[in-house]
């Protein structure tokens, strides 16, 4: 399995990358870490004329604090989510999710931007963008714009990015001292895509759950926010009753695909189990 022949460009700026993409008249692909794209090219699911490598663009690099937001450049690697002190301190859900993303060698190469641009509904990081209330910075024809995660994920592999646009950075609201979080997933084997997974970011409110965001993955065509479960849990002490109520509410939040390996009712059941585990993991006290 080999990729079809293509021309290769390695621009230094966003403008040049955009121009290279445009010159190919709809027959180009951007490449970041390549950990999803290269297999797709090898299997000829895609066969672009031009590959535009984003690796040389400085604007896509770096992790830094900007006021109350953490800016994570799109080219930041999965492995950095485990080690970068700013990500560990201010976006702990990403650090918690990272060990579950593929295998160590893939994490050395895959990028957070690539994962969020691809928006695989079974992927960990896109769902965590939703749980964290992140904003995606996108370079388009009118320059840079920021799209909140709630508006960014639109349908299966469909995001607010239109072809030719570039995901520049992920902006994550920094976690304050009253925040707590939980991440978990259920997979058949280590490193496999999860049957279901999710994360919670919550405010502590004197032993009760304050404002919170819950996001699941592998439970529908996009990463999904569990708004009904959020509403049930807000203001509650996270006891067995609260968890049972939230588990009932969760049914309305998710839309699992019916596939042969994991039928939809099983995914619904696993999502309930996972929600219980996540809430119990929250350090609300």
């Amino acid at each position: 399995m080999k990729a079809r022949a293509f021309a290769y460009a390695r621009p230094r700026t966003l403008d040049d990358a955009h121009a290279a993409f445009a010159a190919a008249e709809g027959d180009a692909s951007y490449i970041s870490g390549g950990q999803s794209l290269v297999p797709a090219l090898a299997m000829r699911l895609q066969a672009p004329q031009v590959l535009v490598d984003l690796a040389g663009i400085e604007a896509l690099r770096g992790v830094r604090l900007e006021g109350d937001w953490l800016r994570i450049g799109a080219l930041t690697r999965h492995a950095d989510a485990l080690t970068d002190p700013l990500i560990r301190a201010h976006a702990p859900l990403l650090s918690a999710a990272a060990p579950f993303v593929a295998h160590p060698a893939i994490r050395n190469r895959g990028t957070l931007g690539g994962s969020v641009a691809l928006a695989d509904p079974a992927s960990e990081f896109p769902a965590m963008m939703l749980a964290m209330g992140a904003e995606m910075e996108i370079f388009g024809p009118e320059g840079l714009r920021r799209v909140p995660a709630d508006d960014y994920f639109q349908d299966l592999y469909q995001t607010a990015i239109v072809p030719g646009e570039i995901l520049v950075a992920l902006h994550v609201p920094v976690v304050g001292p009253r925040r707590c979080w939980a991440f978990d997933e259920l997979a058949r084997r280590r490193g496999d895509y999860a049957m279901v997974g999710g994360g919670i970011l919550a405010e502590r409110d004197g032993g009760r759950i304050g404002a919170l965001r819950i996001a699941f993955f592998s439970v529908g065509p996009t990463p999904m926010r569990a708004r009904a479960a959020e509403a049930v849990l807000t203001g509650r002490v996270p006891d067995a009753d609260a968890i049972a109520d939230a588990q009932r509410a969760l049914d309305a939040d998710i839309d699992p695909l019916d596939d042969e390996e994991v039928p939809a009712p099983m995914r619904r059941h696993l999502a309930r189990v996972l929600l219980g585990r996540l809430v119990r993991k929250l350090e609300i006290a």
Partner: protein
Amino acid sequence: MNMMASGLVPLNLTVNGAPVGRMVAPRTTLADFLRTELELTATHVGCEMGACGACLVLLDGAPVHSCLVFAVQLEGAQVETVEGLVARGAIAGLQSAFHERNALQCGFCTPGMLVNAHALLERGGVPDRAEIRDALSGNYCRCTGYEAIVDAIEAAARAAQGSGR
């Protein structure tokens, strides 16, 4: 139309410590570049989709799948293959532990296992068996059942520790 001709592209990088300059077709993976262009055939190619781990090499010091990287992406990069690790004696301990513990049968997976095990031991200390299994979670072996491989890596880590490395 195309902003560049889809011919060969000049590529300069360092492989096993030596500078390499070639013209390459953009669709050539690093795995194919190493094997066919440089005749470094220790790096094996199994699935060509990141699933089996036979093709692992060190790229700027970190293990990556050479089947999931195009050579043209590596201008200025440092690549080290199993041949390089052997030549500089970096995996002598692992090699003898694999030998002593019978940690291979057909040997197809072994180069990838060695690259990954080397990266794991570079972190220092003696990893526990769960850590070893986790590190190898992307490496398939169709022969051994992994037990002997985990034994060998654990033994090599202990030996390195004992010798004060």
